[in-house]
């Protein structure tokens, strides 16, 4: 029986989660790269939104949520959304099947977009598209099936993942590590300073992520209910504790609280509370988020010691945060919050912790080798990395023939334009942009 309130809530939450990818994540990452790569970085998130939206309606949804085959994968019964209509489904009894499918689509979109931070500033766009399509099909869809679909083996095992800690964050964080190792360091890393070019963009992006995450987590209740309110509360509390955790850890250990650190801590807090938000109360959320913020700060700091170039810290935030979130769910989960869940270690059920650990290990065991194979395929077909020259001139120019900040008002630029005819004016501007991009 379709419930109008539930349906309205899930549809709105779907739009919230879209906002997380574009422009939330796009700006969060876009501000952290150097100026000459900002458009390419923004576009990777936008392109994931477009590409996976189509993949999902063609066959992705069916592979992830379609009728089960051996606990491992959905079949093609629901390909092209055959039979996915306006009536309810077995996944959610009070909302249209299409609404459930759309909500899940936005999760499938953001997960590969999260990985882009690991290979920022050096991946060919064609390689990115092919990688994203293959990764969504071969890593995300099976994993979503294992954890969330009827018959999925991790779901049957009793692993708790309310809104995607393993499926979304640990899978992308693990794959990010493999990507960073396979594609190699950016030219000049770590000797050449590569500071973020526009942290205000990053903070706007982090704010939009925080906002959208209410849809991601509270929407995962799939109903407008007390459970959604609980998830909403845990989400906000976890994000706040994460922001403070990172900020104070950085303040104590590095001397200054930073804007980038506080924003990163909020995102880390959101990551770690994601699997737990429907199973824990606000006090547990403070503990999970606060530890998560400090832990992810430590992980990002450790990166510079280990020497791999996970450019925007996907491993440190989503990988490490994903592991802590999944395990913390096994510690803090409480049936008094959600009767459909389970008790964690602190509520007398140590077995749940081990189940969560299994889910973590299984996720890593799927994502790491599969990502490696996909990268090798992509490299053989189109080559994953741009040339050294293209990397130096920037992806915006070399991959897209665009310049993000072609602000008018340069005296020299005006005199070049006005001296030439209409057709030549365009050529002149192009030449100016090349000069700017290379400069």
């Amino acid at each position, binding site marked *: 029986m379709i419930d109008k309130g539930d349906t309205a809530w899930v549809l709105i939450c779907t739009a919230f989660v879209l906002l997380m990818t574009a422009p939330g994540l796009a700006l969060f990452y876009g501000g952290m790269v150097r100026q000459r790569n900002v458009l390419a970085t923004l576009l990777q998130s936008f392109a994931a939104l477009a590409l996976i939206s189509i993949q999902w309606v063609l066959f992705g949804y069916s592979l992830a949520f379609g009728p089960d085959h051996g606990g491992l994968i959905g079949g093609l019964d629901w390909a092209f959304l055959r039979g996915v209509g306006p009536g309810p489904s077995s996944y959610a009894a009070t909302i249209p099947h299409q609404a459930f499918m759309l909500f899940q689509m936005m999760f499938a979109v953001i997960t590969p977009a999260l990985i882009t931070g690991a290979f920022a500033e050096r991946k060919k766009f064609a390689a990115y598209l092919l990688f994203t399509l293959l990764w969504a099909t071969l890593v995300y869809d099976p994993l979503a099936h294992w954890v969330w679909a009827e018959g999925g083996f991790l779901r049957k095992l009793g692993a708790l993942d309310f809104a995607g800690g393993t499926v979304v964050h640990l899978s992308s964080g693990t794959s990010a590590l493999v990507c960073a190792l396979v594609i190699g360091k950016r030219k000049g890393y*770590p000797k050449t*300073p*590569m*500071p*973020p070019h526009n942290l205000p963009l990053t903070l706007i992006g982090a704010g939009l992520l925080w906002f959208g995450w209410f849809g991601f987590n509270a929407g995962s209740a799939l109903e407008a209910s007390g459970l959604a309110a609980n998830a909403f509360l845990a989400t906000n509390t976890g994000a706040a504790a994460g922001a403070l955790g990172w900020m104070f850890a*950085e303040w104590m250990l*590095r*001397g*200054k609280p*930073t804007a*980038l*650190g506080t924003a*990163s801590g909020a995102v880390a807090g959101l990551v770690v509370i994601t699997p737990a938000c429907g199973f824990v109360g606000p006090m547990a959320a403070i503990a999970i988020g606060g530890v998560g913020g400090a832990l992810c*700060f430590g992980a*990002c*700091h*450790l*990166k*510079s010691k280990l020497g791999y170039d996970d450019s925007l*810290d996907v491993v*440190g935030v989503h990988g490490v945060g994903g592991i802590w979130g999944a395990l913390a769910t096994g510690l803090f989960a409480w049936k008094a919050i959600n009767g459909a869940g389970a008790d964690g270690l602190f509520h007398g059920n140590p077995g749940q912790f081990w189940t969560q650990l299994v889910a973590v290990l299984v996720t890593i065991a799927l994502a790491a080798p599969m990502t490696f194979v996909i990268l090798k395929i992509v490299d053989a077909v189109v080559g994953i990395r741009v040339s050294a020259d293209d990397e130096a001139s920037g992806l915006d120019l070399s991959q897209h023939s665009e310049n993000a900040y072609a602000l008018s008002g340069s005296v020299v630029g005006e005199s070049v334009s006005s001296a030439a005819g209409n057709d030549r004016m365009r050529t002149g501007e192009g030449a100016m942009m090349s000069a700017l991009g290379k400069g």
Partner: protein
Amino acid sequence: MKKIEAIIRPSRLDEVKDALNSVGVSGMTVAEVKGFGRQKGHKELYRGAEYIVDFVPKVKVEAVVQDDLVGQVIDAIERAARTGTLGDGKIFVFEVVEAVRVRTGERGNLAL
């Protein structure tokens, strides 16, 4: 004629400009520049990464003045730009061979 070139703290620009005006300097050129001397750069933190930024933002003030004003101008800049800590800047003085006011064609001191 002499050209006075002063590298100063950005925060002292208004004081230096007023001091130059008050001793009769009628025009000047300023530019935002970067560099370092005894005052070294600063540290920036981005997550795990720590960058040492060597070049410190400064302002360069240039004014061409007639010979008998040079001593007063230097004194005025020194007083206005000094804070007493590292990084107050430097003043250089150059010979100027000729000056021309483009609008009227006046030459030398008349052009200043």
